[in-house]
């Protein structure tokens, strides 16, 4: 193999594919990146056997071939090179890198040893605007929590229905749901899958800030998220992931429909007061939200025998009855940080029931949180 490539392009590609490369003691081949030539493209692939990333770069190919070299080493080295043309040449499993004043050689492995990234033939796909997807995912992804006991809720649930894709995640204490309108064709019937959390994070990291539409392909056990190149009709990057088996719980039942009290609050002020109360919240992170009958303000308080106590008031539009409910402040902060509007709606339901945080003027996001048992 021998190719010519721009350093900047190569560096970008390596930064993307090295994301899922870790130290793998049982199968050291996974520490490597597979460099391959396809038509006029150089492809870079990496995998951790759960997910795989493939990145294409338009290059000048002098001789076709493949190479497998340690990903971190190559990436670190390439980032130090001057911004010039780089020549990569593979001979006897070792890769020679030439760039201006540098000439280096990296010892590689047999490309035949590299895992084969599974492909599937389902050519149907659904399209979503990339920035919307990345933003929506970022509002959701941290809610899921790795759970050995409930593998199905450790991932991010995608459900495509007509021209809407809903993504949801939960850790059984809280749940977030985001709706995104799809571009192009609508889904045929309802399609759904559960994406593990790690690749979901990678999708955000790799794709955010890039324009275009993401194509989502799926089979019963796998999914591919693919972003095309801007210039030509060819994928620029593909993230393949296994899916989590199992049936996602019927989460829509969790979202309460009736409320006792509805508060409309200024987000920044609310967040600030919760953070202040959090400092006095003690071991179980308990912060109490109280609304008394006929009041125009909401009281936020916390108390710890060792530290002291905190009381603050925030003006709010209050509808409904008087109520007193306690929350783990972390859960409220997480929800508020994912909401960017200047005002938030906080709906409190009956005692020990689920409550809802949502932005004012944006129906696409909803955050459901369970309180702390009333004591």
């Amino acid at each position: 193999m021998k190719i010519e490539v721009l350093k900047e392009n190569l560096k970008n590609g390596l930064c993307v594919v090295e994301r899922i490369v870790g130290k793998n003691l049982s199968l050291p081949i996974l520490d490597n990146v597979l460099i391959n030539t396809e038509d006029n493209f150089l492809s870079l692939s990496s995998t951790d056997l759960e997910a795989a990333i493939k990145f294409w770069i338009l290059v000048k190919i002098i001789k076709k071939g493949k190479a497998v070299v340690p990903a971190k080493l190559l990436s670190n080295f390439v980032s130090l090179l001057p911004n010039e043309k780089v020549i990569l040449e593979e001979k006897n499993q070792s890769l020679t890198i030439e760039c201006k004043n540098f000439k280096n050689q990296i010892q590689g492995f047999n490309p035949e040893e590299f895992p084969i990234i599974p492909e599937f033939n389902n050519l149907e796909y659904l399209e979503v605007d990339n920035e919307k997807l990345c933003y929506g995912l970022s509002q959701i992804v941290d809610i899921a929590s790795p759970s050995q006991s409930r593998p199905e809720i450790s991932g991010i649930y995608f459900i495509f229905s007509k021209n809407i894709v809903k993504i949801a995640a939960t850790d059984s204490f809280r749940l977030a749901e985001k709706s995104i309108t799809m571009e192009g064709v609508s889904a045929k019937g309802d399609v759904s899958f559960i994406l593990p959390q790690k690749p979901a994070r990678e999708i955000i990291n790799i794709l955010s800030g890039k324009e275009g539409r993401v194509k989502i392909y799926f089979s019963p056990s796998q999914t591919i998220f693919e972003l095309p190149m801007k210039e030509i009709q060819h994928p620029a990057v593909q993230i393949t992931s296994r899916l989590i088996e199992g049936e996602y719980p019927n989460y829509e039942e969790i979202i309460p429909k009736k409320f006792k009290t509805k508060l409309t609050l200024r987000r920044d002020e609310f967040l600030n007061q919760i953070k202040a109360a959090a400092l006095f919240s003690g071991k179980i992170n308990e912060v109490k939200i109280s609304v008394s009958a006929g009041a125009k303000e909401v009281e936020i308080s916390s108390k710890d025998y060792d530290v002291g106590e905190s009381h603050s008031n925030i003006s709010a539009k209050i509808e409904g009855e008087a109520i007193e409910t306690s929350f783990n402040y972390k859960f409220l902060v997480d929800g508020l940080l994912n909401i960017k509007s200047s005002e938030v709606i906080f709906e409190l339901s009956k005692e020990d029931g689920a409550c809802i945080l949502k932005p004012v003027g944006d129906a696409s996001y909803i955050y459901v949180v369970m309180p702390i048992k009333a004591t």
Partner: protein
Amino acid sequence: MNNSELWQSVLAQMQFHISKANFATWFKNTEIISKKEEKIIISVPNAFSKEWLSNKYNKLILKILHDTDESIKDLDFIIEPQLKGLLIKSNNIENEKTEDAQLKFDEFKINKETNLNPRYTFDNFVVGSFNELAHAAALAVADNPGLTYNPLFIYGGTGLGKTHLMQAVGNKISDRLKKEKVKYISSEKFVSAIVSAIRTNSMESFKASLAPIDVLILDDIQFIAGKNKSQEEFFHVFNSLYEKNKQIILSSDRPPNAIPELEERLRSRFEGGMIADVSLPDYETRLVILKTKTKEKGVDLPEEILEYIATNVKKNIRELEGALNKLLVSSKLNQTIDLETTKKLLKGFIFSPFDVANYKKIIETVAKFYNLDEKSLFDATRKKEIVRPRQIAMFLLRKELKYSFPAIARKFGGKDHTTAIYAYKKILQENEENNRLTEELNLIKQRIYSG
């Protein structure tokens, strides 16, 4: 040679051909799942293993298989994630966790197919004299669904373990025979499903969805009272299941003959199987329940505290658990729990009959029990369906609250006090003669004191 032996011999030989790391990575969780004539199908845990095995080792595996068994000429791989092992482990992990103050979405614990909550089993059901009949009947049904007692009808006040018992039956049946389909539905959901089926004109598909069920569990069936269309549809569902010897289990807060506005044909069907009641647990049983709960949660509370709770929290089992939970939460915050702090913490739970039974409560409960408006109890009317509840309300005011007859008469719109005396005497006398009335009175009293 069976499939697993065959695959073992393949694995044994594969070890010699590939590196240890490769062997561990690619052959983990693989097995032969079927052997049809010349073709072997091997299940692999994920798509990567499938690609690797079918591209790299296909020939080698086939050769070894062919050497062992000459009839084998073809090989295929399918992806079959290893879920079952994981799930069994997981249940144990969950149980070890102690109760926390932070609440969770309850819906997630529920099995999606059957709607059963796996937490409810016979093992953690405490049996005492107050529920042994219901327990024995439930066990018999679980052992022999559809044949012994059909339908099984369990009734009793709130928070006494009806749901626990019914779900335990469901869990036992669905654990034992995987082929039997169990479905637990609360009557409220059942009614709303019927309503939405009517609205969307999909009654047929709703019925079809219930047809394959082997065990149908309907909780709080009294909600169906007064909903005529729902009763009619339920009647058909009931019949079609009953004819096929499918088990039906129902619960209610009162016996079938005390459910108002229930169609006669349904009532007689409910009474056609086994009717068992659960009532309030006695002191000893309450203590046993507390001990079971503390053991479940992995905490240790001194005997005197448990005894204090058992003596003083008498309303129902749910209350008992609530009191215990409250103690546990505060024990996490400020460590030591002694009798004094217990007394302070449980103030709200402590049962005092003078607080609980009051005028308002009696009127409210009686009106609710007979499906009447509170106001209509005071109407100047002699309609039979109002006179009787009114007499019962007067009787209870006298008997439970020791109201004077003139006071009772005043409360009921300035009637003469002799009316109140007459009502009291009439109910008192009938109470001795009429079993059904006794039953009703007991249920109303139970509700007054447990609400």
